């Protein structure tokens, strides 16, 4: 159990955030310890903060951070708490800064097509408001109904329609961030809040995106406004073998169709998983072993012309069009079908409530078939040893921004029956994660396309992946956060201080 903060520190927090913005009760702490990733519930107390603050302004955040520096207390930023790599999970207790109350739309700049928001706003809620003006903020992760803009920046989020509109880093024009020492700065491409491209100075915007809360707390963000799409197109094609589907995935991705939002390749294990409950897949013929899906957005005339080109390419493949109902319905359910505890099955086929774990490497197109085989072998080994894991299949999803070709967000989803954790199975699981990551690196990929790589089993490979880049990370961390306040313990960055 974390040692309670000194009363005087709590009093200082109250002086900054008001009595209604500071919590030290147990339920406030325990309910801000987790994210939806496998969580060692038996070691819950190791992960609770000592105090929670709900600030309402950048100035309050700044003062809290300065206080933390004065007292040497870690600070953990938390937005939606929906990330999958524990960015918002306290590793060393401390003060948790929860930004959910900072959820206002501050300004819509119609002339320059930006919207400025607080970090606690959710994209779906934002788009409900933007729709009245004909705008659309196209950051569309699977967690679209619940993740918050601050967390999207902190984790460098990935969007399901990124091939058309870009990902979070492309959609955030500039933002205000409280540095680990409490200064409030604005970063973007150059100086102007709505400048999209600048060559002035270091490109600091990228530095402060995806740091998992180790370099500061975003307090305001200026976002792109796209025109609300007139039209949507989605099409699913079935294949009897993976390689035929792999070929069509590549062909569609390289088509150059500008309205193309993304192409997805589902493998045989993923189809088997979908057959467990998805009404579209249950009646599909046994011969369906892989599926390719694509989706487009934009002006109706452009979507139509682009879709015809995509369909011409698909007609030349071995695939069969799966019909409008599955093509549309399954696309519309893209946020909802990814994490379902009831889909867990023990070896004898019984339903068990399993957590969804997803490894999300970025893999080059040419390497997908080999990686697929190796990853399933790792999962299979795990399942044979412990009747608490379940292979929920793989998919590969176009990973580029504003273009579909190149590398793929590649996921293997593994169900984990978490109430069965033992030290042995946890260790085996961490080893398996590390093996999965190692395969990704061996094939020229990255440990992660969107979730981040802070957790046990993957974080140890970050220095391997980044090489000299990791040394630079440590230098930056030490320079910006001399007291190691911000999200202490994440990303092996404690090493930056050990070497002093």
């Amino acid at each position: 159990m974390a040692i309670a903060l000194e009363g005087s520190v709590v009093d200082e927090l109250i002086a900054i955030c008001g009595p209604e913005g500071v919590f030290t009760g147990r339920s406030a702490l325990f309910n801000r310890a987790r994210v939806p990733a496998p969580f060692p519930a038996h070691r819950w107390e190791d992960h609770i903060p000592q105090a929670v603050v709900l600030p309402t302004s950048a100035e309050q955040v700044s003062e809290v951070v300065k206080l933390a520096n004065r007292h040497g207390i870690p600070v953990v930023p938390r937005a939606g708490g929906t990330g999958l790599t524990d960015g918002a999970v306290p590793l060393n207790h401390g003060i948790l800064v929860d930004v959910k109350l900072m959820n206002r739309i501050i300004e819509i700049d119609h002339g320059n097509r930006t919207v400025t928001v607080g970090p606690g706003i959710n994209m779906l809620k934002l788009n409900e408001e933007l729709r009245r003006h004909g705008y659309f903020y196209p950051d569309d992760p699977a967690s679209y109904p619940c993740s918050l803009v601050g967390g999207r920046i902190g984790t460098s989020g990935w969007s399901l329609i990124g091939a058309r509109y870009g990902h979070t880093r492309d959609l955030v024009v500039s933002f205000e961030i409280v540095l680990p020492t409490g200064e409030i700065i604005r970063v973007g491409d150059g100086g102007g809040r709505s400048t999209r491209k600048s060559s002035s100075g270091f490109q600091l915007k990228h530095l402060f995106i995806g740091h998992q809360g180790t370099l500061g707390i975003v307090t305001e963000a200026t976002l792109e406004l796209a025109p609300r799409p007139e039209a949507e197109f989605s099409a699913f094609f079935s294949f009897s073998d993976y390689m035929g589907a792999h070929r069509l995935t590549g062909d569609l991705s390289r088509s150059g169709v500008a309205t193309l939002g993304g192409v997805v390749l589902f493998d045989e294990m993923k189809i088997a998983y979908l057959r467990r409950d998805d009404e579209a897949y249950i009646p599909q013929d046994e011969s369906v072993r892989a599926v390719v899906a694509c989706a487009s957005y934009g002006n109706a005339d452009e979507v139509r012309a682009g879709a015809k080109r995509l369909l011409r390419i698909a007609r030349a493949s071995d695939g069969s069009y799966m019909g409008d109902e599955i093509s549309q319905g399954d696309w519309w359910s893209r946020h909802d079908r990814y994490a379902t505890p009831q889909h867990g099955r023990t070896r004898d086929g019984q339903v068990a409530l399993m957590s969804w774990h997803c490894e999300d490497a970025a893999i080059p197109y040419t390497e997908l078939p080999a990686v697929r085989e190796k990853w399933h072998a790792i999962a299979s080994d795990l399942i044979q040893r412990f009747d608490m894991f379940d292979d929920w299949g793989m998919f590969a999803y176009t990973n580029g921004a504003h273009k579909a070709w190149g590398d793929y967000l590649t996921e293997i989803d593994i169900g984990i029956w978490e109430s069965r954790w033992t030290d042995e199975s946890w260790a085996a699981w961490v080893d398996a994660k590390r093996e999965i990551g190692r395969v990704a690196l061996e094939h020229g990929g990255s440990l992660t396309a969107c979730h981040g790589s802070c957790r046990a089993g993957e974080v140890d490979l970050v220095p391997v992946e980044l090489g000299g880049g990791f040394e630079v990370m440590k230098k930056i961390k030490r320079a910006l956060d001399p007291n190691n306040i911000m999200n202490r313990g994440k990303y092996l960055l404690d090493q930056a201080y050990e070497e002093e």
Partner: protein
Amino acid sequence: MSDTTASERETDGNGRSTLPAEFLERWRDVAYNCFSSGHKFCREVCPVMQVTRDERHTPTAFQANVVAMEKGHLTLEDVADDYVHCTMCGACELRCPNTLFTGDFYRFRQRTIDVVKAMRALAVQNGIHQRNWKRWAELTDRWGNEPVLGWTRETSGARVRAWAAGLDLPTGGETVLFADCEAAFKRPSVPRSVAQLLRACGIEFGLMEQQWCCGGPMWETGYVDIAHRMAEHNMLDWRRTGTRRIICPDPHDYITIVEHYPELDDGFDEFEIVLALDVIAEALRDGRLKLTVPIERTVTYHDPCRLNKRLGVWQAPREILRAVPGLTFVDVDHVTQWSYCSGAGSNLWVEKPEITAQISSRRIAKARELPGVDGLVSACPWSERPLSEQGAAQGMEVFDIFELVAEAAGFEV
């Protein structure tokens, strides 16, 4: 009051309340179904969360607490106040992919309302009371109906039919109109409108000999023994007067009866429970009811949570509003309204009036965004209390759908 002594409750070494085995047996899997997925799609549709933004009040927290309590991390004392922060609107459990996408397939859906009810009941059992809810329950038990007129104005079974003065309605019979608490005492124009409309439809009906509260708010706030007394009294009253069919203008009554009464009574199948809304919509459809007086206004409709989210009833009220002559109906679709609420549900307003006020204020503000709209029509008397209060402050008149329809049918409301 269903208090137990300290020796009867389950406690940890420090005398703080823990979860009994039968509670865990019943709710563990439901809690893990949420804990294991952790989507949190519930957060942004939750009306309380939209106001407080405090993770203690998320539906996810209500489930995670069960897991944490089983592991000994939290006690009932730690969380009892958190569980007050819920209107039981049902948005969370409906929007949850574990309900919406797999609840039917597995015949296992997310049940947050039930967990909140169970936790509140356990708190009451363990002597952990919310001050106003306790007073509310005591007066409900004493008077037979909830103290909706304030702590001192009696809402007794003897006065519950006062709303029907001059309508000359019989007692009992095959069909009764079920009008209790908020509708009967606080907004009598609702049952009066319904009574006149039912007559115009040619439906013969009476009133209960002595109408008591449906018991719903007692189940919702943890006073289960009182709820049982209310339900058993009402069923006895129906049987005494030969009643088979119960027409409910208030969706809270309807959902309480269909969700809670059957488990108390093996013979429940002899009763048919009907929403007044469905009766009126059907009568308009088949021409038994004609609306002839134009209502020249521009209004929008508030989907009451128990109708829309918890029962899936959203078409009938829209059908009715479209049949009102002269009325310009600006609709906001019912799925968007999954995240709307009046803040009235499960007596949140009795215990946390400031949160209810903020929820209803936001709802009125949403109506005000619609071009030309100066009226908000609801179909739930409970919602109309906070909505009317906030509507008065923001220049938005709030009607009950039956009041509007009765006026269009030429009745004095």
